[in-house]
């Protein structure tokens, strides 16, 4: 098909990475405090510090994984279908034709809202087809939603 390969893939907003950093940091901090306090009360201050350090290292390792995961998300709007690829260890690539879309979900949780981000999810009649794009800038999410809805209507096909 002509013109289908000319479109370049797009990535989620860089703020998604920042959001994930904050999430991991908050979770790590909480876990480190609890573990440190528990170990410190049970076996003295050095044990507490060691427990907190272990948690901190774990958080850093998690961050490394999360960084790769965030980088792996990408989506391409082609003429006839949307391609979403994700995953580091298990790589997944979904091709969803616009005509097959049933509805488009735009969600933004409290954390995402704080970072002015949103998640766009495409639903088809098949439960298995997963085309989810997290961490989009609000404007981009709205644009994508409108474009998908318009294209879905234009190319709609029955079951």
């Amino acid at each position, binding site marked *: *098909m002509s013109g289908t390969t000319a479109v370049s893939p797009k990535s989620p907003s860089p703020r998604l990475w920042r959001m994930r950093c904050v999430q991991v940091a908050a979770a790590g901090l909480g876990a480190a405090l609890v573990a440190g306090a528990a170990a410190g009360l049970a076996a003295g201050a050095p044990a507490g510090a060691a427990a907190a350090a272990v948690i901190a290292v774990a958080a850093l390792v998690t961050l490394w994984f999360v960084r790769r995961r965030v980088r792996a998300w990408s989506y391409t709007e082609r003429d*006839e*279908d949307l391609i979403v690829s994700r995953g580091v*260890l*298990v*790589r*997944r*690539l*979904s*091709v*969803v*034709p616009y*005509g*097959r879309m049933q509805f488009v979900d735009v969600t933004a949780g409290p954390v995402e809202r704080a970072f002015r981000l949103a998640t766009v999810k495409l639903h*088809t*009649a*098949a*439960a*298995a*087809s*997963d*085309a989810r794009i997290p961490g989009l800038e609000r404007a981009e999410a709205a644009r994508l939603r409108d474009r998908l809805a318009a294209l879905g209507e234009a190319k709609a*096909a*029955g*079951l």
Partner: protein
Amino acid sequence: MTGAVTGPVARPGGGWHRLHPLSPLVRSGRTAVGLLALIGITAAAGLGQGGSHLYDGLAAALVAAGAVVNWLVTRWRLDGATLCIETGLLRRDSRQLPVARIQAVDVVRPFLARALGLAELRVRLAGSSHADGRLAYLPEQAALQLRAQLLAAHHGLDPATPEPAEAVLAQVPTGRLAGSVVLSSTSLVAVLLIAEVVLVTDVPRLVATTGGLVVVWVIGLAPVLWRRVSLEYGFTVAQAPDGIRIRRGLLSTVAETIPRQRVQAVRMSEPLLWRPFGWCRVEIDVAGSAARDRAEETRRARKTLLPVGPRETGWQLMRLVIGAEPPPLSAPPRRARLKTPLSYHFLAAGQDSATAMGVTGRIRKVTTWLPLAKVQSVRLVSGPVQRSLGLATVHLDAAGRDVRAEFRERPAAEAARLAEELPVLCRAARQRAQFAGGA
């Protein structure tokens, strides 16, 4: 099946009709039986002191009154182009079913209704998932006649046209059905449990600990086996002008019609124990909400096309439903054996310009075949082990919860090419189908 023209249904332009006067009895049949049993038990046990009989009687009377009122306020009419069904006392519910949009008309006979010579008519419309009409219950003859009328009107024929003949494609003899149930994994479990019981009774000490549990298991398994027999007894598949017609049932009989354009995928499974006999089971996935088929005791949108039958019959049915010849299959490369040692012997997949087929399974061979026009999305998945072997899996998802053809363990280059080409092929197939269907 169509008999002589009798009853009030014969007039197509006629006025309003009631359902059969015995309908409330059949509809509240289960509840009534349960209540009666409850009353009987309480009375027999002498627990009915202090006016508890009164409450039981009151409850039964309420149920009965509700059913009768429901019958009184329900009426239906067929005036050429629409079937109207009105019901409800407080909240009036009037349903107009345009004959032109009728997709299928099913005749269902639950046990009690069958004993009384009644039948339920179920009208399903294209497109909508829940606005379907139910007429429960009509006299059997009237139901069959109304069904023929609706179908004739749907095809723009004279309402008096008799129901078009159907060609029987396959029938399942009772012996084979019984054999297939005996050779199913469920009964294998049951046999193992019984063996355990025998073993345990030899060692008296164990009886107390595991005996009760085993009995519970056997009690739990027996209905499963019984259900398969009673649901699939006398299974007949026929080809009718409006789709594939299936008749089945021992106590309650179901006659359902599956429009061919609603079929999303067909699946043939060949369990290990059936293979010596060359038997297979064919199921189809149908689009639409599954919940409304609850009365037929099939909650899923997966319907059995052939409970058990020779492989050739299975293939014949699948070809008929899909309307094409199977695509050429190819096995994954030998190195895939390292990743899937247990299922490599079955793995195969292939596609042509109209359909795609994937074979999977470890012990039970499952062949899934779907028209490309029904594909909802294409997914390319590769795990770490697959990547190290240069393999990837391509899924073709069709509408439904777990409906897909899998191209397992294909070489990475081929998988990438498939992920590129299949969406294009699917689009072409979809456009062809739309063009053929008149949009």
